[in-house]
C-alpha cells in the first residue's frame, strides 16, 4: 500500500507547531508516533494535505515530576512510560496499559498523546487517565487551556480539541497514600490486540478502618467513548473492601453502566459479562496494592 502524497512539516518548537496548525487547521493532521495515522492514511480511511510532525519538539517528549503532580508530554512513547520510575511508582494503571498496547515495536513508537487523540473507545491508556483524573494540556496561538480528560472525548475518533489547538501533554496529580489502581484489558491473543473490553479502577481507602473513601472506575470498548461506571462506584462508597463487594460493583458496572454493541470482535453480552469480571479484578488488584503498602 502506498502512502498518499501530502506536505510534510517538522516544526522544532511548540510555537512553530501551533502557528502551522492555525494556518492549516483541519487540512493538517498531527503526527506523533504515527502508528495509527500512517495506517489510516495508507488504508485511505482519512486523507490530508498536510502532516505536521511533532517529533522534533523536545518538550513534548518529557516526563516532568513536579512532586505533587506529573506532566507527561504528548509525544512520550509507551515504552518510555513503561520504563519511567515516576509512572511505575505512582501510576501503575497507566503502566499496565502502556505495557500491553500493540507489540514491542509499536510501543517504541506509539505515544500517549497519539493514543488519546486517536480517541478509540478501546484505547489502552484512556481508562487509566480517566481514573487518575488527568487533565489534557492544550495550546494554540490564542493561549493555553486545560481540560479534564473525562470530558475530552466526544465519539470514536473525535475529541474536544479545537481546530487550531495542539495537545501538548497531560497533568496528573500524584495520588496520596492508601490509594491503589489497576488496569486490565481483554483480547483474543496475548499481544498485538485490539481490546474486546478494558477496565481501569482506582480506589482510596480510609487508613483507619479500610473503608473505601473514593473510587473511580472507567470502562473501555462498551460505549462510544470510555465511560465512568458511576453505579459501581456508588456501591463501593464507604464500604469495607471485600471480594463480594468487588463482585457486586462488577455486576453493577456490567448491568447498569455499560451499553456495548455487537461487532466482529465480540457480542454485547460477552462484553458486559467481561466488564463485570474485569471490574472485580482491577478493584481486587488495587486493594491488594494498598494492603501491600
Amino acid at each position, binding site marked *: *500500500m502506498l502512502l498518499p502524497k501530502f506536505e510534510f512539516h517538522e516544526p522544532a518548537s511548540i510555537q512553530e507547531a501551533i502557528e502551522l496548525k492555525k494556518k492549516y487547521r483541519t487540512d493538517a493532521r498531527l503526527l506523533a508516533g504515527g502508528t495509527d495515522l500512517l495506517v489510516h492514511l495508507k488504508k485511505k480511511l482519512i486523507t490530508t494535505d498536510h502532516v505536521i510532525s511533532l517529533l522534533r519538539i523536545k518538550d513534548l517528549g518529557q516526563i516532568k515530576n513536579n512532586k505533587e503532580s506529573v506532566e507527561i508530554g504528548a509525544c512520550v512513547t509507551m515504552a518510555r512510560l513503561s520504563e519511567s520510575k515516576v509512572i511505575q511508582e505512582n501510576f501503575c494503571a497507566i503502566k499496565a496499559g502502556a505495557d500491553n498496547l500493540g507489540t514491542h515495536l509499536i510501543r517504541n513508537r506509539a505515544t500517549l498523546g497519539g493514543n488519546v487523540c486517536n480517541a478509540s473507545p478501546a484505547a489502552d491508556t484512556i481508562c487509566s487517565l480517566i481514573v487518575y483524573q488527568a487533565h489534557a494540556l492544550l495550546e494554540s496561538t490564542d493561549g493555553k487551556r486545560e481540560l479534564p480528560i473525562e470530558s475530552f472525548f466526544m465519539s470514536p475518533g473525535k475529541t474536544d480539541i479545537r481546530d487550531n489547538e495542539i495537545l501538548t501533554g497531560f497533568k496528573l496529580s500524584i495520588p496520596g497514600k492508601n490509594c491503589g489502581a489497576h488496569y486490565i484489558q481483554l483480547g483474543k491473543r496475548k499481544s498485538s490486540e485490539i481490546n474486546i473490553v478494558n477496565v481501569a479502577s482506582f480506589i482510596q481507602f480510609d487508613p483507619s478502618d479500610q473503608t473505601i473513601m473514593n473510587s473511580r472506575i472507567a470502562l473501555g470498548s462498551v460505549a462510544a467513548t470510555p465511560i465512568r461506571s458511576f453505579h459501581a462506584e456508588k456501591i463501593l462508597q464507604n464500604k469495607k473492601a471485600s471480594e463480594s463487594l468487588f463482585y457486586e460493583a462488577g455486576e453493577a458496572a456490567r448491568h447498569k453502566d455499560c451499553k456495548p454493541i455487537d461487532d466482529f470482535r465480540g457480542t454485547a453480552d460477552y462484553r458486559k459479562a467481561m466488564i463485570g469480571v474485569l471490574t472485580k479484578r482491577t478493584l481486587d488488584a488495587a486493594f491488594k496494592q494498598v494492603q501491600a503498602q
Partner: protein
Amino acid sequence: MEKFDIISSRAPRIDTPDKATGKAVFIDDISKPGMLYGALLQSPHAHAKILSIDTSKAEKLEGVKAVITSKDAGSVKYGVSPARYDETVFAIDKVLYVGDEIAAVAAVSLETAQQAVQLIKVEYEILPAVFTVEDALKKEAPQLHENFPNNLCAQVHQEFGNVEEGLKQSDIIKTTTLKNKRQDGACIEMQGCIAEYDVREVLTLITSTQVPHYVQRTVAMVLGLDIGKVRVKKPYLGAGFGIKASANPMELACCILAVKTKKPVKMNYNREQVFMYSRARHQFTHTITTGAKKDGTIIALKHECYLDGGAYTSFGIATVYYTGSLLGGPYKLANMSYDGYRVYNNKPACGAQRGHGAVIARACFEQQLDMIAEEIGMDPMALRIKNMMNTGDTTCNDLNMSSFGMSECIEAVRKGSDWDKKKGNMPKGKGIGMACGFFVSGAGYPIYRSDTFHGTVIVKLTEDGGTALVYTASAEIGQGSDTAFAMIAAETLGIPLENIRLASGDTDMGVDLGAYSSRQTLMTGHATKEAAEHAKQQVLEVLAHKLDIPMEDMDIKKGFIEFKNHIPDFSVLRTRYIKEHRGWTDNPDSEKLTFKEASRIAFLEKGSIVGTGKYKPQLLGGKFKGAAVGTSPAYGCSAQVAQVTVDMETGQVTIDHITDAHDCGKAINMTSVEGQMEGSVSMGIGEAMHEEVIFDDKGRVVNNDLAEYKIVTSMDMPIVNAIVVESNEPNGPYGAKEVGEGAIMPTIPAILNAVYDAAGVRMNELPLTPERVYNAIQVYRKKLSA
C-alpha cells in the same frame, strides 16, 4: 543402522548467512532496468454481470503503457486440477467474488498504474449472491457455474467395509460435529512477481511461488507459448503454506503485460489482495460417528463433511478427497464411509493449507477417541496404542504404512510430558490432552495426470574437482529443502557440506513439482541421491581404470577415497594433479587420495562430469474412484500433548506447554525437523485459538490485515518440547520422510482435549475465542446445576 557423516546432523542451513545478514534476495528486492509496474482492477461486487468495460480514460493517462482485459487475456480456462479448470485470467462476463480480476494496467510507476485502474469504467448488473454452504445449497440459490448445478463443485461418496454393520456391532457410538473457520495462510511475504519478455521471445517470470513447474505449465497454456519458451524462477520466499502452490491471476496478468509492452513488469499483492485471493484452508463442517467395542476396539467410522469452497475450485477437488481419505489411519479401522461435498459460493476460493484437507477431520475424530476412552475408563494413550496399525499395514482405503513410528511417538510424548503423573491430576482450570495424526510424504501423483518424473536433479562436478554443483527445480520456501538436498548430495558423494553449491527454484534446472504435499525431502531427495551417486560412480570408474582396482573396492568418505583392501600407490595421479595446478599452494599431501584429485583426474579423462537423478513413486493405491488422493510413498507420524489453562471467568485459554513427537523417518537435518515441528504447532495453535477470516454481508473481508486477522504471536507461543522419533522409511532417501505437515495434525485436537480436561467443555466450533469458551462454560454450568 547406517552411520552417516552429514545426514542427521545439525548442520547450519545454507541460506542462514544470507537471511541473517539481510542479503537474501526476495521478490521485493528485485528490480529491472526500464521496469513497469502493474496493478489489477478487481471486482467490488460479490456477484455481478459485466455489461461493459471502458478502458479509454485509463489508456490516455500519461505513463500508462498497457491496459488489458479478457479481450487480451482470452478465454483459456485454468485452475489447479485439469478436472476442474474453472478460472480465466480476467472475468469475461461475470464476476463471482469481491476481488475477481477484471483488468490490469502497466505503467511507469505504481502510483500511475493504480490511478489508471481507478479510471477504468465497468458497468455491472448486480446479481444476488450467496455466502454460506447452507444458502448455496438451497434450491432457489443463485448458481455460480453452469456446469455444476446446485453449486456443488464436487462430491465424494466412499465406503470401505460395512459401516452400518460395524456400528451395529459397536457397544459405544459417539457422534459429534466440528466446524472450523476459513483461514488465511498469512505468509509474511505477500505474493509478487516480475515478468520479462526478451527479444528472442522467451518469457521469464520471477515469482514468489512454491511451484515453479506448475506455474510454468499454466503460463504456457494460458498464453499459448511453448513450455521451452517459458522460464519460471523463484527467489527466496517468505513462506507459502499452500497458498502459493498454484499459478495466480496476478502472475498471468503480469506475463501478458510483459508480452504486450516488451518491458519487465512488476506486480505485487498488498495484504488486502492476499485476503481477497485467499486459497487457504477451507471452512469444514464435519459430522463424524465412531463406533467402538467396550474394550476400546474401534469398529467403524461414518464421516460427512461440507466444505465452504468459495467461487472457484482451486485445490478443492483434492481437498474434498483428502478430507475423507486421511482418516483411514493411523488406527486399524475396517469400516469407514465418507460423504464429502464442496460447495461454491461468492467468496474467494479456498485451497490447500498445511495439512491439506485433513486437519479439522482429525480434530473432530481425535476428540471422539478421548470421549470413548473416558466412557470405558481407559487412558487415551492406551486406547490409541490398542488400535494402532503396525509397520507394513495398509488402511481400508489402501494407504500403506511402510514405516510407522506412531506408537513410539505416543510413548515419547507420554514420557516427555510426564503424562502418567499429570493426567487426571491437574488442578482446577488446568488440563492436559493428547492426539495423534499422520500425513503424506508427497502426493502419489502429479496434479495433472501424467507419467512425468516428480523431480529431476543434476549434480555437476567443477573442473578443478573441488566442488559439486547441485541443480534442482525444487522450491526452498523457508522449510530448509536447499539445505536438505545439499546434505544428501554431500553424504552421497562423500564430501564435506561446504563443497556443495546448490541452486534451486528455476524451471531451467529440470522438472520438480515443487514444495507442496510435504514432498520435497522424500521425492527430490531421492533424485538428488541418484544424481550424486551417478556423479560419484563416474569418478570411481575413472579411478578404477587408472589404479586397476575394482570399483566395488573403493568408496568416497569425508572428501577422501577409501580403499577396501590396501591403499594403492597413487603417486602418478597425485603428480599429475599437482602439475595441473602449477602456482597453486594447496597441493595435497594427505596419506589418502583426495576426492578433489580423483575428480580432477576424472574430468581430464571424461570432460564434464554430470550426474543425473530422477524420481517418481512406485504405483500406489487402490482402484476405487479417488484412490489416488491420499496415496504416498510414505507417511510421517505425529503425537502431541497439550497443557492448557482455562480462565473460567473470562474463557481465555492459555497454551502452557506442548510436547510434540514426530516420526520423520531418518532426520536429514535434525534442527530443520524441529523447526518444522515448532512451525506446525504455531500454525495449529493459531487455527485452534484465534484465526478466522470474517466477511461482511456483501462478501468483503472485514479483518483483512494482520492486526485483525490474528495469527500466533511470540507471546502466545508456549514452550514446545520437540522430540524427533526416527524410523527407517524404506521408500525414502536414506530413510527420510515428511515433517512439514504431519506435525500440525495433532495440535488442534490435543488442545481441544486439554480444554475439556481443564473446563469440562467439548467445543464444536473453532477458533476457541474467549467468548466461545466462556459461552460453553456457561452452558456447562447450567447443565451441572440443573
